[in-house]
């Protein structure tokens, strides 16, 4: 048994941290936050591409590095720490994973190399209205190979080249690959809680759409993709939560009140201990998810749900209590706490909220208990 990263993975992690420390300082995140015309950090995207990270978990035959899912998790954790303002999750965790999972050989050969080379940004478009993704919520229709409907919110929908869209044809759900450069596609950038990750409303009016996987499997494929994305996102969340804890700790050590550092007061010490506890539990659950994903284990749906529930809880708690630890400065625009507070919500909602994942988790548990 070996429940830790390997030496190679640890090396990758430390290199990734160095790289992002150099190329993704908080000022880069703020640049995207403060400039509404800047949807993402194109320089960073280019550099990340050069690192080969986009293709870390794509096979060599498709132009990737051919590493495992665990290596992608390692990268995800560091991207989460640095709040990287790039369309990595949409493109890699959702779209590349969907194509790897359900794409034909031809679709893989067409799209995975482009993704690995950083030429194609992807987005994943499933929902149309408030509430969980479910059959009744899918109004988008494909007829004669053409898609009509509206999807929102679509993370990175305003900058993506392709979308994977959940739609129905003949009453059956399917995932569809759509080229967004088509003139029938309308895009409207959305105002969201986390402007460092862009989001859009996409309108399709008879847009050519190509089936990914089988018709009738759209919802279950979307869920399978979300299970995979949930594990990677959990690492981003753990990375963000760890960084929030470090911020809180640094502030608590250096801020004095009543003649002593606030970090010497139990109210702050125990708050930070509680953040640490949640972060460690989330990390351990994420590790298990990484193993299940990499191993192709049957436990993936349960492990992914556990990783996500734990990570959503940890990052939200760390982000809000880091802010609280900073007192008045914490809720100003100029101090970075709110970047983590916003990102905690973005990551906590992008693959669906924790409440729905708890229900998925318990459903899996019931199946396991019954087996």
């Amino acid at each position: 048994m070996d429940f830790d990263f390997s030496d190679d993975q640890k090396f990758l992690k430390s290199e990734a941290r160095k790289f992002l420390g150099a190329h993704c300082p908080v000022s880069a995140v703020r640049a995207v936050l403060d400039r509404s015309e800047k949807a993402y950090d194109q320089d960073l995207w280019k550099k990340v591409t050069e690192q080969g990270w986009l293709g870390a978990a794509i096979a060599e035959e498709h132009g990737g590095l051919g590493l495992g899912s665990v290596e992608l998790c390692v990268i995800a954790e560091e991207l989460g720490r640095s709040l990287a303002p790039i369309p990595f999750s949409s493109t890699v965790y959702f779209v590349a994973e969907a194509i790897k999972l359900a794409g034909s050989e031809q679709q893989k050969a067409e799209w995975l190399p482009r993704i690995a080379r950083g030429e194609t940004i992807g987005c994943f478009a499933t929902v149309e209205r408030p509430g969980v993704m479910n059959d009744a919520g899918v109004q988008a229709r494909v007829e004669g190979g053409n898609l009509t409907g509206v999807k929102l919110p679509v993370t990175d929908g305003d900058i993506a080249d392709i979308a994977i869209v959940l739609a129905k044809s003949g009453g059956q759900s399917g995932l569809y690959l759509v080229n967004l450069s088509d003139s029938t596609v309308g895009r409207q950038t959305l105002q969201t809680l986390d402007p460092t990750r862009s989001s859009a409303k996409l309108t399709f009016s008879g847009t050519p759409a190509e089936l990914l996987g089988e018709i009738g499997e759209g919802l279950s494929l979307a869920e399978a993709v979300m299970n995979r994305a949930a594990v990677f996102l959990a690492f981003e969340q753990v990375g963000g939560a760890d960084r929030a804890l470090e911020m809180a700790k640094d502030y608590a050590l250096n801020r004095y009140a009543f003649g002593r550092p606030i970090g010497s007061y139990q109210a702050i010490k125990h708050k930070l201990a509680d953040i640490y506890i949640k972060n460690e539990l989330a990390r351990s659950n994420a590790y298990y998810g990484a193993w299940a994903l990499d191993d192709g284990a049957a436990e993936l749906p349960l492990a992914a749900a556990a990783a996500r529930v734990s990570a959503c809880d940890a990052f939200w708690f760390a982000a809000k209590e880091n802010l609280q630890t900073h007192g008045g400065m914490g809720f100003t625009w100029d101090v970075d706490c709110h970047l983590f507070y916003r990102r905690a919500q973005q990551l906590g909602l992008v693959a669906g909220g924790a409440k729905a994942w708890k229900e998925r988790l318990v459903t899996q548990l019931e199946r396991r208990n019954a087996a």
Partner: protein
Amino acid sequence: MDFNDTAEEAAYRSQVRSWLTANAPRKSGRVDSGLEDPASMEEAKAWQRKKAEAGYACVTWPKEWGGGGGASWQSVIFGQEEARHETPGNPFQIGLGMCVPTVMTVGNDADKERFVRPAVRGDEIWCQLFSEPSGGSDVAAARTRAVRDGDDWVINGQKVWTSGAHYSDFGLLLARTDPDVPKHKGMTMFWINMKDAAVEVRPIHQMSGASNFNEVYFTDLRIKDSQRVGGVGEGWRVSLVTLMNERLAIGGGAGGGHRTIFKLAQEISTLAGPAAKDAGLREKIADWFVQAEGLKYTRYRTLTALSRGQVPGPESSIGKVVSAALMQDMANTALELEDQFGIISDPDLAPLAASFQTALLAAPGMRIAGGTDEILRNIIAERVLGLPQDVRLDKDVAFKDIPTGR
């Protein structure tokens, strides 16, 4: 235990109602949410003047100072009835609730004569200049210096978290006059003219996008010694008079949130069915409801005490601790229900005009401004329950020798 009025109360209430119906304006905007908004400020001032002329502005204050000369229970009733109308924003709260009462208690006769009546009439607005960047929760850590120069004082330094500084005429300023004595002993209180050129007000940009607070900088601000409020070195004791008055300002509550989330739940599905039937959400709604109702009836108990002429104690600190956490929790839960859609904060697209997204961004400030959760729990523990203060390393040393980590 009775929610009904006595005959005397009923008579007063009916008189107030008629007056309000005849005189209350429609609110057209909120002064305290924006930076500069001359129109709504004028509206607020006009309403205050009208109330003052009818004796409803400061109901319990003496008539000779522009008040209503009434009893506490009349003030409570007027407050209840006014809350039923859409009235303009209230930029006078800090002045009339904290600063002017301090002048009335501690100030000299000339100051009382000069300031009370215009403040009651809404002609002049006050702000409170206590908090500083290095102090945070520790008001007595003020570093803004006031140095004696003949019959003047020269003031340099910075205040922060000052509500309404940009529209205030006067400010109550706590400054350090002697850094060589222990912190609580070397401060003095002054009033200052906020329109002086040596005073610079800069809005603080909050994470929510709003700017409810300011930084205030003083560069060689020269004031007369006659602007001193209380004795030299008495600043801390004077500030306690101000802060004690703060308690009396009974804020509104977080009631009704359960209604909003119910509305949301009726439009939304969970994986198991309609959210309004979700037992998990229903339990949370029950929890929030008993907290909000508990606060509401706690305020009624405080109002009862007030109307009997008693002074409410620090127990009213529980309101903000409970309602701020409740607001944050409810907003987060609502966003979880909205699922992926929850990230959208555009009021034209998000359910209920994005009220939960707005609440999520405002809640952190609620948990901090006006005393953090942690400070308020200290206050409850120490002043209500009588538990000892934490160990203090800053009490018996000269202010300049207190560790600051810099």
